[in-house]
């Protein structure tokens, strides 16, 4: 048990608390602390990925043995998510430190709280603790969403908050059912007890599983549950929206974790089959709606929000195929889509600041400065996002489609994905030509300065997409192993509970 | 005594807190110590919130006053109960103003509370400038007698306690 495992939660919390205690510190100092903390998280993420290569790592909080105490579990998936979140957060905090953190109060403290929540959600092996961390990350996200104020944010924020409160209520209901029938909260223990439950109880437990699917589906943005997202994401400030790119992935992560471990231990009759049955069509519809939304978007931020929806749809649809290889591919796609969605939110801001009018509205033709740099960035990002070669978008999509062929209905996924790709090409080419080709050269007397730090941040983030493509082979290897681990829940159970998972009936002291 | 005043600005009240603590917990030396510490700390921390300069000159008389109040409450509750249950139709409620002689706000508060607790009357408004209390009476027969009664029974003793 290494204490490094708890640090992804402790470090940001400490940073946030410290920032609150010193709430009078200058913004510069706040930035230093915040960036420092986030950098430490990146280092921890790297450590986690390296450490997770070998085996599961568990951490007994309060030195109480699971299932009684709360346990943290580090496996390949959580390690990867930790690193991804930390990296993304680093870019966001760097970008925000160029000025948007001044628009409201306590940006950095809230940002660190947000990271604490996200990291905790990735690490925890306890279902109720997951709920708590969800609340932390949600509340922090509410606050960050409204950072800077304004009408649009208020309304979108209100919707976002209320819908997620309903989600939290449903989460608690599901937790209640699970506890009421199994008497435990630890995911591994739950898995054991659920697998051993009577068929009658299992029917009720399946209801809980579907409830959880709805809960995570709200966060991960699945079709009838996602309408809060476009406005919420497009209303928030650029670095926040970019960080939010990971939020739907947290929902996806929770879905994967809970459905595969908690409801998937019994290989003969996994309870998650019923969930997958529903997840599949809904996720495909989500994908389709995302594509339509991308085409119909009025601004780049809205478009980016629908791109997030699209990628969520694709992720969940591929997850619903319930196959190891597909999951591996979708995890790769997750990396790609998270980075790219963030890029688009940041780009919208970067471009919007350089346009003389209309910010990122697509309907407005306005001269902009630095057409070349911005245009090139946009082109590369768009190419990667649309899944055109040679960037990660193409690689991940090709791998996903290729691996999906084992599923009986894979042609649906293919068709909708490819059609969505076409929609994306149409929308992005329209946006790009409208912005970079259409307008007259900038004639305003005051040439707006292009912030090199912001550009560098976005460029490096885009560069990650290229790097992912270049070094796809080792990443894919990691993903394959990760998916393998996820589809082997008994190993998880054994790692957490310390005894063979085949023993049924759960643990009693 | 200077340091004592700095540390325990309201010794009487601190003592009251200590007593309260000991009543809440089972008596032990540890609790005595803890209670003392808490009493001192709390009275110091809350000092800024204290009403200005109200000095109880005669704590003993205050206790006697409270004792009599308790009896009055009991007695007059029975009267009110009877009125509510049996004569509610014949009641003739009304307001009247009670001119104050007390000047201390704390004393006035005690008087107003007394009036409210004793049945038949509720103090509805304290007019600080006009130095009077607005009182609602459940059954208002003789206004002057009521004012006299309050003055004799409650206001005079209070004046003695706070003695200004």
């Amino acid at each position, binding site marked *: 048990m290494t204490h490094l495992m*708890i640090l992804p939660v402790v470090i940001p919390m400490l940073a946030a608390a410290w920032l609150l205690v010193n709430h009078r510190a200058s913004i510069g100092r706040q930035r230093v602390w915040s960036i420092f903390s986030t950098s430490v998280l990146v280092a921890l993420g790297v450590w986690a990925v390296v450490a997770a290569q070998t085996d599961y790592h568990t951490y007994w909080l309060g030195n109480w043995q699971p299932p009684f105490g709360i346990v943290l579990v580090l496996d390949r998936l959580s390690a990867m998510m930790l690193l991804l979140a930390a990296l993304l957060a680093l870019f966001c905090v760097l970008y925000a430190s160029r000025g948007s953190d001044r628009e409201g109060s306590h940006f950095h403290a809230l940002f660190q709280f947000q990271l604490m929540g996200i990291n905790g959600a990735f690490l925890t092996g306890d279902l109720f603790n997951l709920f708590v961390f969800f609340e932390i990350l949600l509340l922090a996200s509410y606050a960050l969403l409204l950072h800077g104020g304004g009408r649009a944010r208020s309304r979108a924020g209100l919707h976002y908050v209320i819908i997620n409160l309903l989600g939290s209520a449903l989460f608690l209901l599901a937790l209640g059912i699970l506890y009421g029938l199994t008497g435990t909260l630890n995911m591994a223990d739950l898995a054991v007890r659920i697998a051993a439950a009577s068929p009658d109880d299992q029917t009720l437990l399946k209801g809980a599983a579907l*409830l959880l699917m709805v809960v995570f589906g709200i966060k991960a943005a699945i079709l009838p549950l996602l309408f809060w997202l476009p406005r919420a994401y497009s209303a928030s400030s650029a670095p926040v929206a970019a960080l939010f790119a990971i939020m739907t992935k947290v929902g996806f992560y929770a879905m994967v974790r809970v459905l595969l471990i908690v409801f998937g231990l019994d290989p003969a009759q996994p309870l998650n089959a019923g969930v997958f049955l529903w997840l599949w069509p809904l996720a495909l519809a989500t994908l389709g709606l995302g594509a339509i939304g991308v*085409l119909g978007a009025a601004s780049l931020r809205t478009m980016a929000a629908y791109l997030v929806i699209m990628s969520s749809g694709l992720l969940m649809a591929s997850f619903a195929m319930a196959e190891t290889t597909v999951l591996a591919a979708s995890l790769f796609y997750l990396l790609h889509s998270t980075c790219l969605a963030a890029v688009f939110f940041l780009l919208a801001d970067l471009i919007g600041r350089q346009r003389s009018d209309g910010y990122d509205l697509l309907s407005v033709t306005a001269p902009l400065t630095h057409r070349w740099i911005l245009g090139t960035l946009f082109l590369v990002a768009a190419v990667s996002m649309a899944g055109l070669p040679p960037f990660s978008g193409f690689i991940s999509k090709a791998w996903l489609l290729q691996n999906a062929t084992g599923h009986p209905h894979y042609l649906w996924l293919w068709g909708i994905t490819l059609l969505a790709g076409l929609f994306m090409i149409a929308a992005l080419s329209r946006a790009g030509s409208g912005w970079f080709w259409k307008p007259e050269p900038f004639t305003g007397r005051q040439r707006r300065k292009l912030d090199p730090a912001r550009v560098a941040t976005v460029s490096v983030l885009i560069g990650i997409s290229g790097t992912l493509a270049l070094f796809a082979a080792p990443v894919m290897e990691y993903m394959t192993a990760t998916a393998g681990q996820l589809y082997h829940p008994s190993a998880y159970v054994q790692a957490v509970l310390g005894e063979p998972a085949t023993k049924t009936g759960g643990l009693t002291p | 005594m200077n340091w004592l005043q700095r540390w325990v600005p309201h010794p009487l009240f601190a003592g009251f807190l200590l007593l309260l603590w000991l009543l809440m917990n089972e008596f032990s030396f540890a609790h005595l110590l803890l209670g003392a510490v808490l009493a001192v700390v709390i009275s110091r921390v809350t000092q800024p919130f204290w009403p200005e300069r109200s000095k109880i000159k005669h704590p003993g008389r205050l206790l006697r006053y409270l004792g009599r109040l308790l009896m009055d409450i009991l007695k007059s509750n029975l009267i009110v109960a009877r009125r509510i249950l049996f004569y509610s139709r014949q009641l003739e409620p009304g307001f009247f103003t009670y001119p104050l002689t007390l000047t201390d706000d704390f004393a006035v508060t005690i008087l107003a509370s007394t009036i409210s607790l004793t049945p038949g009357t509720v103090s509805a408004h304290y007019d600080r400038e006009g130095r009077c209390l607005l009182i609602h009476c459940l059954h208002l027969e003789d206004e002057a007698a009521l004012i006299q009664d309050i003055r004799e029974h409650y206001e005079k003793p209070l004046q003695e306690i706070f003695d200004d």
Partner: protein
Amino acid sequence: MLPVLGAFASWLLSRRSDGTSIRAHALLAAVAPFTGVLLLASHWPQASDQNALITTVQWIPQLGLDLSFRLDGLSWLFATLITGIGCLIILYARYYFDGKATAPRFFILIQLFMTAMLGIVLSENLLFMLVFWELTSLVSFLLIGFNWSNRGARRGARMSLVITGGGGLALLAGILLLGNMAGSFQLSDILSQGETLKQHSLYPLMLSLVLLGAFTKSAQAPFHLWLPHAMAAPTPVSAYLHSATMVKAGLFLMARLHPALGDTELWFALITVTGMVTLMVGAFVAMFMHDIKGLLAYSTISHLGLITLLIGMGSEMAMAAALFHLVCHALFKAPLFMMAGYVDQATGSRDMQLINGLWRWMPALMIVTLVPAAAMAGLPLMSGYLSKKMLFSESLLVTAPHWADVVIPAWVTVAGLFSVAYSVRIFHNVFFNGQPRDLPVWPPKHKPAAALSPLAILATLSLLVGLAPQWIYDHLVHLAVLQTTVSHLPAYDFSALSDAHTPAMMSLVAMLGGLAVYAARKPLFAIHARLPEVDAKDIFETAMQRTIRFSQTLVYRLENGSLQRYLALILLTTVALVAWSLLGLERWRGPVPLSSLNPLVVFGISILCLSAIGVVLFHRHRLPALLLLSVTGLFVTLTFAWFSAPDLALTQLSVEVMAVVIMMLALSFLPQSSPKESRFPRIARDLFVALAAGGGVAAFTFAVLTRPVNSISDFFLANSVPGGGGTNVVNVILVDFRGFDTLGEITVLGIAAVAVFAFTRNLNLKKRVAESGHAHWVAEPHPVILQMVAHMALPIALLVSAYIFLRGHNMPGGGFIAGLVTAVALTLQYMAGGLVWAQARMRTHFRSLIGAGLMIALLTGVASWLFGYPFLTTTFAHLHWPLIGEFELASALLFDLGVYTTVVGATLLILANLGKLMTIAGPGKEVG
């Protein structure tokens, strides 16, 4: 082959730094393709060998994507065309772009494009080929939109990208299927498995997808629409991409995959029919184009259709004809485009109705144009004549489907007739046909004679092909044909062709008919002009706009900003899914017997429900609803108290009051009541949703409560005292067993408070929504009597909270409740004395308090590392001190102190900031 790519890369880099003359650019740009030609020439021996030359570097083995190149006859032919014509195009562009600032951009893009094109033809790995395939779409998008200030250019670029990009996606699907079926993306593996592939059940789908990709790229009807609009590109681009290279990529792909996928009925039907339609549409429309480039574009479409048709026939001879014509077409179409560009630059127009009789001003141009135009018309002795004759003869050989043996020959003859007509027209209309009219630039500008050199070279080559077809065929095309068919046929015999009778007759018919049609062009144009004008770009744009508008409408209709709708959807989904999952439940009631009813419980629960219903009934009147909500909260508290949960009762109660106070603070800014808005259907819908949700909860409650459970709680009951040092198990769980949850919980509270602070900091309240009372004399801001009692209550409340805090570990209580009691007592001070008064007496900042509380809790947890234990491990000790006696010290108490501090700070921060909104402190000033 790698040096070619390497050369491009290095060239691209060096390109950036120099901004000198166009000559230098062009020279530099030409280096690579020229090297390429030489390299290809040097590789001819290997290519002529029947075995392909393959180089492979692994990239992503999981994907089957390798950097793998293949050089065989087919790729050699294409690569030579690409690099060779590329050289000439660069030469041409050197003059075309003379004096233009955009030249460097052109050279970069054309180089990139050439790379991509070479990549397509030289890839051994199909996925790798796809990378280049999409790259050509992308670069051509940039090239077509080269003159971006022109609306047509932008639209044309977008259109071509959408169509070819879409085709690329279909191709991706097709190739993935193909790879999946063959188990590899390597061409050598795929080509060797033709029979297996054709037997596969997914063969039709796969073939359709692959062909969709090929057709879109090669502008086959109905995807040909993008090509004419790609003419907005600079002429060198059109000459290169839209005559010689990119559009040939689809043909290349079909030829390449023919051995593996061809010779089936589906192949024949799909490709032949498409080719025929394209051939005819292109030829017919070309006749009526007044724009030179437009005419050339449609003629290109027509010729592409022709080649496609030949590939569709699939016989060895047809393949030979296809590839031969492909070479011919490249050689005559490129110079014609160059001519168009030349004329365009010289006269400022491309409209053949204006441009007439140029022979007098540009005799040299006329001469070099003569050969390609004749070749395009298919005049005898020209390359086009031969290939057309090959086509005619092949068309006669097709007998397989019943309809084909008459239809195809007739069809191609008619198409040939049109092609003669437009070929004659382009030559005659430009150089003769009277005097020029109203040309924008007049007299025409002349370019140096060298500018004509690429035209001349190509015309010469074209002529050579016509004169020595057999040699050309044997040395260039035959090797390629060998790669496209399964059998190893002997070389095509041109002498046999010249003997064939019927094809010659067909040629003659086409020739004479074409001339006749051209002669009758005036009435034909008149008829054509009367036909409704159909602009493909407009169709495409309209379709695009429609789709976009449809998407917008759909999205707005779905995402209409109605929270109610979103919530209802979520709830309905939940109910539906859960109901579905419970269909299989055999019985709701479990084995545990029901417990008897207690009248007290009935009473309490009834009031709980009644008050909740009351809240619903009164919801439009804020204050009464709030009071009823308090009642609900109170009875929830009583329920907890009755069912053995004193801690919960305490917490619920305190929280309830704080929540109500907060709601009341906010209430003053909200309307006091709202009108009745919902109509009956809406209410009915909501009622249905609500009842369904309520029914679900009730059902689950009943089902679970009547079932047995074996909980882990016994562990907590057993270990609370020995392991946690406290008898109040709930509190020990909170600060010890599950202290991590509590840490999270207070974090939530802290975030909420900080967020409230942030929201209210700059909130500007324009008006104050106070009721207009008539009796302000009673409405003093701070009633004296309240103040007195409130101040007295504070120390007592603090003492009580100390009591609750300290005994929480063993009895109901704890840091959280103690914190709330403290906060409530302090709130009372705010209410009694006012914000300014109370704030002046607060000695700390609430935000610091929150931070400090969180840090205390956190550091208590971290401290256990010092003793080698995990985070949040607690310890406790029973100490015995003289005089004091035995007492217990638990580290959990310190943790609880953190909780206490956070709760106090957070609650007060929220209240104070809400309170400040209407006070003199006002917005902008920080409170707490």
